[in-house]
């Protein structure tokens, strides 16, 4: 009897020891898990703040270098904002009138949008409202492939195919001209407009569509009178994003639009855009730290402000629209 008690006591103590050992091991594991959890969370937060850091550094870099540009004696703010003469590379008569570049950008963007917006919207309407499933399955990958082609390829296409074609149509076209670059940028923006507009059309509730058709409207009536107005803000946002993309497009205009900044509305003539100027500066002698080098930052800052405001406007418009239907 006594022996039994002793034995059981002994076994219970070993049991206790084992239990507490297990417990402590569990506690240790738990502590390790907790530390791991915290470390990972901190790392993720660092990732999240990294994107904020990018924005801050873009603004910081562009702002400081632009200020340095304006500190040069030959540069005045009134000249920069008030003149359309952009001749930073002329030795004696340098003039930094940003409108000379902005007008080129606007001309190319205008041509591109005149091509991409109507075509993109109509294709989006077709894909969303009319197309049978088979056609959709064929067209969507084609649009994706078009969207995935690098811009330098479009630049080559503009210079080697569109420009000779335009020159064949009409003798007045320069080798480098705004029309060719604008059309190529339009082709580039077309898939963007199309897929964003289609998203907007698709997210109009089916009940609206059914209601319009049920009242005896044709598909065209339903599209024009009901679905388009309902998706309008989404479509406007798609347009704004496409415009921002066209303004920031670089390689096409660098190859096909030429390098003579001038305020013209003649699409046959050579122009230079903001992005084209930056490429010209960087492709040339960048170790030259003169005024013209820093003018690149001023142009970049202008470009950044324009595209950022367009993108933000587009996002705001789209968000407002989303709130209506969710």
């Amino acid at each position: 009897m006594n022996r039994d008690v002793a034995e059981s006591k002994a076994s219970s103590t070993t049991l206790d020891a084992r239990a507490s050992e297990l417990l402590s091991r569990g506690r240790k594991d738990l502590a390790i898990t907790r530390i791991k959890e915290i470390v990972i969370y901190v790392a993720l937060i660092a990732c999240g703040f990294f994107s904020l850091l990018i924005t801050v550094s873009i603004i910081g870099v562009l702002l400081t270098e632009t200020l340095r540009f304006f500190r040069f004696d030959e540069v005045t703010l009134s000249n920069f904002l008030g003149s359309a003469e952009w001749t930073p590379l002329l030795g004696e008569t340098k003039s930094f009138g940003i409108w000379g570049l902005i007008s080129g950008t606007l001309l190319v963007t205008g041509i591109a949008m005149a091509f991409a917006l109507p075509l993109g919207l109509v294709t989006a309407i077709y894909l969303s409202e009319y197309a049978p499933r088979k056609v959709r399955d064929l067209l969507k990958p084609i649009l994706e492939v078009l969207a995935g082609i690098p811009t330098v390829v479009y630049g080559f296409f503009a210079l080697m195919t569109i420009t000779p074609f335009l020159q064949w149509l009409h003798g007045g076209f320069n080798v480098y001209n705004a029309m060719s670059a604008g059309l190529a940028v339009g082709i580039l923006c077309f898939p963007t407009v199309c897929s964003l507009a289609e998203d907007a059309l698709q997210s109009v509730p089916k009940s609206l569509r059914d209601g319009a058709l049920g009242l005896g409207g044709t598909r065209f009536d339903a599209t024009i009178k009901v679905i388009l107005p309902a998706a309008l803000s989404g479509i406007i946002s798609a347009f704004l994003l496409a415009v921002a993309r066209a303004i920031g497009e670089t390689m096409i205009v660098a190859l096909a639009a030429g390098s003579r900044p001038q305020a013209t509305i003649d699409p046959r003539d050579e122009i230079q855009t903001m992005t084209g100027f930056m490429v010209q500066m960087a492709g040339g002698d960048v170790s030259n730290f003169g005024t013209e080098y820093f003018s690149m930052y001023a142009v970049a800052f202008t470009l950044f402000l324009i595209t950022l405001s367009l993108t933000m406007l587009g996002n705001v418009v789209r968000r407002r629209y989303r709130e209506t239907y969710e």
Partner: protein
Amino acid sequence: MSEATPPDDRMELQEDPGQQDQRQQRRLRGSDGRMLLDQYFRVACIGIAGISVVILAFLLGSIIYQGVPSLSWTLLSGTPEPEPSEAGAWPAIAGTIWVCTICALITLPIGIGTAVLIEEFKPRNRLANRIFSAIQLNISNLAGVPSVVYGILGLTAFVSMFGLFGSLKGGESSLEIGAVYYDQFTNLASDPFLSMGAENARERYFLAPVASPSDPPTVATSGMEMFEYQGDQKVPVKISVFDPFGDLPSDPEELSLAIAADTIPGRISEKSWYYFSLPFGRGVLAGSLTLMLVILPVIIISSQEALRSVPSSLRDGARGLGATPWQVVWNITLPAAAPGILTGSILAMSRAIGETAPILIIAGIVYIRNAPQHLMDSYTVLPLQIYNWTSRPQEEFHAIAAAGIVVLLVILLSFNAIAVILRQRMQNKVR
């Protein structure tokens, strides 16, 4: 109802007045006109949607027509010689592989991490919520920044590093690892003006190690030990110094070891594969980091969509079993979202491969003969090489540019195909 046929005009002559009345009434209601409009619009839609097919066919057709005749093994393996028939794109292809691999290694963890943070660790208090929505807004704005602006940022932040480590102008960096500097001496025979009496000696180059790149030029003395390349091996040799206008040794072997007393050495450097310097300069690493800026928003947005499409019942189940937030993400959400994340990443990488403008800004147009050897080595990428060839005036280079485009498009289309296949696999799985 949209299948209604347009009214047949020939019928009108044989119609009796009653039918005509009916028709007129229908016209008054506008039903015919609306039907017709619908039909016309449908046809116009098909025509306009067909334009995209025509454009793609025309684009690919014209490039293939111009490029395929110039496709050759030389193009894939050669260096970009100034002679069009010998020009190749191997350094550019190697540069693309280097830059995009490093870019993927850096961008994927950061991008997916950000997406996980926003989607899976949604905070509960108001301040943190506001910060999170600021990050979200910021990402969608970053996606709209033109890539050329990222190039400008990369030029300042990575290439010259805000000028913190000395200027780029001198080509010197203040902090380097893995570089050995030498002063290179030429022997008497290699100087055409001094080689009188040394014609039968061969030209040789000798290297004298330098401790630091800022040291003054080495002064050669007789009996000094220098190195010479014999094949790939560095062999120590003893050189001797002579007055070039005095008596020269008659033995050709001894003469070939002779250096003129007034020889000024050239400073050269040898860089190992782990060479690292600050600032990064116009090297591979700066290019990769700049491309990271361009595709980071793309990867974040597509990863977010992939994470969002994971059913929340999976998460709730794991949480109910006592998993910690990270255990849920690592064991449940990420594996479920992996195909979607992978698809988005592949598409983002194909964008990085085709991106030209930022690389053009930070690397400039340089003549590169070799594949990059280390992270700071100068490089060029395939789209930049295509740009370079396209912007030359000679017709022959345009054909080579088209051939380069064919190579680039084959790479990109195979990336796209992989992404499409993955997406279909994923859709089948979910079903």
